């Protein structure tokens, strides 16, 4: 005699429905991948801008040109004065150096690259002439993995996906079943309602794992994002995030009778977090007056925690209060949803 386990069958049904729906698979896995690749390419580190300098023909011109050419970022040409002025006017160069007892710089202060060229060229020439800088300083370039925009972006995209997946993967699925009267049909059987809810949330947690692999994997393989955190810690953090947003998803779906209603509610919930929760830039940039709101959003806390764990290798215990905020955001909607849920 075959044994039938309702929770297993409900979960299998969720899994099959999801995998047999190419659109759902694309929006869950393909979309964040494309977004990460697109943004990664758009914000990839560009080579350092060259500084174009013209030196007006003069007996000291070769000497000045020689000094400037020691700097690899400078492109130096020597022409007659009129030609140099034309180059500057047409934007082919940023600065004209007119040698003499007093060196004259011709530049347009309204052009940032002109101003930059002026500062750099002057520094180089002054030092070559023997200037000593009284304050010792050194320069350190931060272009190594871990400090670039793409490094910042990948955990943010992961957080965004955990939010979207939790809300859509739970909210949409439930309302769709309600619209199709399937929910009513299931309630007409002896099915345990908790089995049903666990299968939906469980399904969401299972679909979350490939999501994590796709987004982090893209970051590591294509953009050399350095994952410093413990893999298990990252997974656990994502689980907490996914459960938290599943609770919200359940809440938005608990009464809605139409797909339009639930879509609107989900966008209403997600929009502030898209804007404020630090997916694309740091939430610390918002004014102080907004910070209480910004900091209380679950995605803000999830993104902070993801960045700390993934990029800095922080432990989960160091993020415990962020986890607590996430848990509260998951638990309260979950219980409200159970209370208000419209089964029929």
């Amino acid at each position: 005699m075959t044994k039938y386990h309702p929770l297993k069958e409900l979960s299998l049904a969720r899994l099959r429905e999801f995998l047999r729906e190419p659109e759902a698979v694309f929006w869950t896995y393909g979309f964040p991948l494309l977004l990460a690749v697109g943004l990664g390419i758009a914000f990839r580190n560009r080579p350092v801008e060259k500084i174009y300098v013209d030196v007006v023909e003069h007996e000291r011109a070769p000497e000045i040109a020689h000094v400037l050419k020691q700097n690899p970022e400078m492109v130096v040409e020597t022409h007659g004065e009129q030609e140099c002025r034309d180059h500057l006017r047409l934007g082919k160069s940023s600065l004209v150096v007119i040698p003499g007892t007093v060196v004259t710089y011709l530049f347009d202060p309204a052009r940032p690259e002109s101003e930059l060229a002026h500062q750099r060229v002057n520094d180089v020439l002054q030092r070559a002439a023997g200037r000593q800088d009284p304050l010792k300083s050194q320069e350190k370039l931060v272009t190594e993995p871990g400090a670039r925009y793409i490094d910042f972006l990948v955990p943010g995209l992961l957080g965004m996906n955990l939010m979207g997946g939790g809300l859509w993967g739970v909210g949409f699925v439930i309302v769709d079943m309600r619209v199709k009267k399937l929910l009513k049909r299931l309630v007409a059987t002896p099915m345990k309602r908790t089995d049903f809810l666990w299968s939906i949330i469980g399904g969401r947690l299972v679909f979350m794992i490939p999501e994590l692999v796709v987004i982090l994997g893209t970051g590591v393989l294509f953009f050399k994002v350095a994952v410093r955190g413990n893999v298990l810690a990252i997974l656990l953090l994502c689980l907490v995030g996914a459960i938290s947003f599943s609770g919200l998803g359940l809440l938005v779906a608990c009464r809605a009778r139409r797909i339009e209603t639930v879509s609107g509610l989900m966008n209403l919930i997600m929009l502030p977090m898209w804007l404020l929760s630090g997916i694309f830039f740091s939430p610390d940039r918002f004014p102080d007056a907004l910070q209480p709101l910004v900091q209380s959003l679950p995605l803000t806390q999830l993104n902070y925690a993801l960045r700390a764990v993934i990029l800095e290798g922080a432990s989960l215990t160091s993020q415990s209060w962020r986890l607590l905020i996430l848990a509260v955001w998951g638990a309260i909607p979950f219980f409200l949803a159970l209370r208000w849920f419209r089964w029929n």
Partner: protein
Amino acid sequence: MFPSIQNDLAIRCQGLRKRYKSRSGHVDAVNGLDLDVHRGECFGLLGPNGAGKTTTIEIFEGLLDATSGEVEVLGMRWGQNDDTLRQQLGISLQETRFPEKLSVYETLVLFRSFYRQGKNPAEVMDAVGLAEKAKAWVGKLSGGQRQRLAVACALVGNPELLFLDEPTTGLDPQSRRQLWEIIRDLGEQGRTILITTHYMDEAERLCGRVAVVDRGKVIAMGSPAELIASLGGEHVVEFAVSNGATLAPAELENLPAVREARNESSGIALTVTEPHIAIPALLKELQARGLNLVRLTTRHASLEDVFVHLTGRHLRDDEVSSS
């Protein structure tokens, strides 16, 4: 209050009322409905759309709460023995869209898993003629196949009491006949079946007893034969005359063997006991009045005629009565 132990009754319902709020006050979808369904019978709720059939059956199914009234299902009450009851009920709702990307077999296994005891899903697929479609996705099934799947999902828990809400609505004639055969087989196995329908032929073919429901009340109850016999005549003569604007049906009720006369959308219908007496008398009457007969048909009276007799309206909206 009535005693809880009524072993021969599958459903006992008294004074059932369901009131919905509406913009203009309230609507009584079910308005004092009484009925008993015996164990082992196939019972039909027959009535037009909006008569309150679905509201009634959903209260029996425990999916809706009654505003007032007493309902006992298999000797139990909703709110007290829900899980025990659910284990013994098989339900096919008026409209359920099963997951399109699951196969027929997967859907049945899913529903089977909710019941402690039940039938083998493969066996149920055979019983409803879906064995060939076991691996087909639900989204690829025809309307009739989907409806048979709905019945299969209701059967897979091996229920004692089966609820079928409008099982053949929207199906083509062949699919309807297939489903009728399945339902008749189920009835022969001794299962109790409660079926709602607005098709009088469906009720006549499948149901041992029928309750005719209109505006939330039972207006007649009995076997189809009894209900038809209550008309006083088992035959219906329908005719039309070319210049019959002046002919009032009431003038024909005095003809021999005619029990009732009424206007139809395309002529006049007479309920008669003996056509071989009524028809010659009718022809003579028309001739005497100088009216030209353009059509004359006879048929057996049906539950439709019972409904028209009781309410002056037809069961289905598309058959408009002009009386």
